[in-house]
């Protein structure tokens, strides 16, 4: 499949320099990014078959002796391109804090307990419909040093591969109705409200498993559109 990747789509992304998120100040390019033609190097990308993941890698509640504490949840959705066609065989990786808002990462030393039964990392590969599914626990909010009394809304980090290296996406999935949204400079780095809300999963009663787990649906739309003669003319 040969796709085009309009750079206009990137207007939905945060600006590299977003001073409200302080770490961007010394880590964002100061010179304008150079626009170059998309060559074979940009239009191709890595492929990961089902050997990249093992059975059970998508269940974060079964990686240790016991079950982790917290609200068990199902997080699922579809990986799509901008024409809403499924992206199959896409590697989807996620990592998150535990139910108390603590990461396993040893730089995270904030005074919330680790859970010996929870690492917080998972991965899977999308099926022929671009669908993926994880079983995990709802991550807690956690404080960070960006500004006084700064707290991140509950979120799960996602890493996704699409058809090409330019459709590579790292993002965060948020939960509906979070009271911390108005105060979070990372969430609000996406300035367009509609685009911002595409990072918020929807509560999915239909896929909730009675007496066992709530479900959230999070579709991920990656760069890439079907090439049409008109688009090709635009592009070259």
């Amino acid at each position, binding site marked *: 499949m040969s796709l085009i990747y309009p750079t206009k789509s990137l207007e939905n992304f945060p600006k590299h320099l977003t001073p409200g998120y302080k770490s961007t100040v010394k880590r964002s390019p100061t010179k304008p990014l150079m626009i170059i033609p998309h060559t074979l190097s940009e239009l191709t990308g890595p492929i990961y078959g089902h050997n990249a993941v093992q059975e059970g890698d998508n269940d974060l509640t079964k990686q240790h002796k016991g079950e982790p504490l917290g609200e068990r949840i199902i997080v699922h959705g579809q990986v799509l391109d*901008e024409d809403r066609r499924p992206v199959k065989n896409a590697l989807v990786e996620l990592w998150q804090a535990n139910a108390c808002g603590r990461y396993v990462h040893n730089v995270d030393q904030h005074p919330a307990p680790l859970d010996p039964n929870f690492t917080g990392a998972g991965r899977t590969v999308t099926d022929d419909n671009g669908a993926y599914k994880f079983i995990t626990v709802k991550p807690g909010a956690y404080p960070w040093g960006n500004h006084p009394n700064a707290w991140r809304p509950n979120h799960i980090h996602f890493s996704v591969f699409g058809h090409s290296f330019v459709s590579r996406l790292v993002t965060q999935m948020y939960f509906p109705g979070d009271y911390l949204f108005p105060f979070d400079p990372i969430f609000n780095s996406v300035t367009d409200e509609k685009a911002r809300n595409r*990072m918020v999963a929807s509560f999915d009663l239909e896929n909730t498993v009675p007496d066992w787990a709530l479900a959230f649906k999070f579709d991920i739309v990656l760069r890439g559109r079907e090439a049409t003669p008109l688009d090709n003319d635009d592009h070259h």
Partner: protein
Amino acid sequence: MSEITPSQTVGPFFAYGLTPVGRCDWDPNGTYSWKNSVESNLVTPDVSGTRIRIEGTVFDGDNKPINDCMIEIWQADAQGRYASPGDNRSLPNTQFKGFGRSATDKAGIFAFDTIKPGAVPGPGGKPQAPHIVVAIFSRGMLRQVYTRLYFSDEAANAADPVLGLVPADRRGTLIAHKEGGEPPLYRFNVHMQGDNETVFFEI
């Protein structure tokens, strides 16, 4: 109207999920209880070509090494073919994937073991000099930045169509310098800001 999902920062704590084993020495025991999906060593037993090592540091605007950075590379094989459906010349039976991932360590250093890519077709059939596409993710980066790595010992750089678009005084930021050794080491430092700010691409 694009329905694209916006990018968000990889944050400071990705290592146990994305680079749990290997160069990441954040964990006191060296690794987390999880496995890599992508390695920093791209060399497969069946791959042909010149083995090389790439090492570098990513510097922030204060010229300090960034020690919570993730670098991904995407490259062709020694014959200039990508292991991707987007390249119909790719050999279906080779194990070489051309894709690697490395975290920076506490000193801010990333490293890859790979093979030197061949020349790749460019716009209008004009060949591109051997190069590697580089994506950089970090706390403080709300989306990845892309750059390219070229090799200091390639005469083909002079005619490369992408390098040719870069102002001459900034081209050097895209060149990895050969330092010798066996396999040869190419050093590729990235400067987010400053006088030597690396050329980043909007692609």
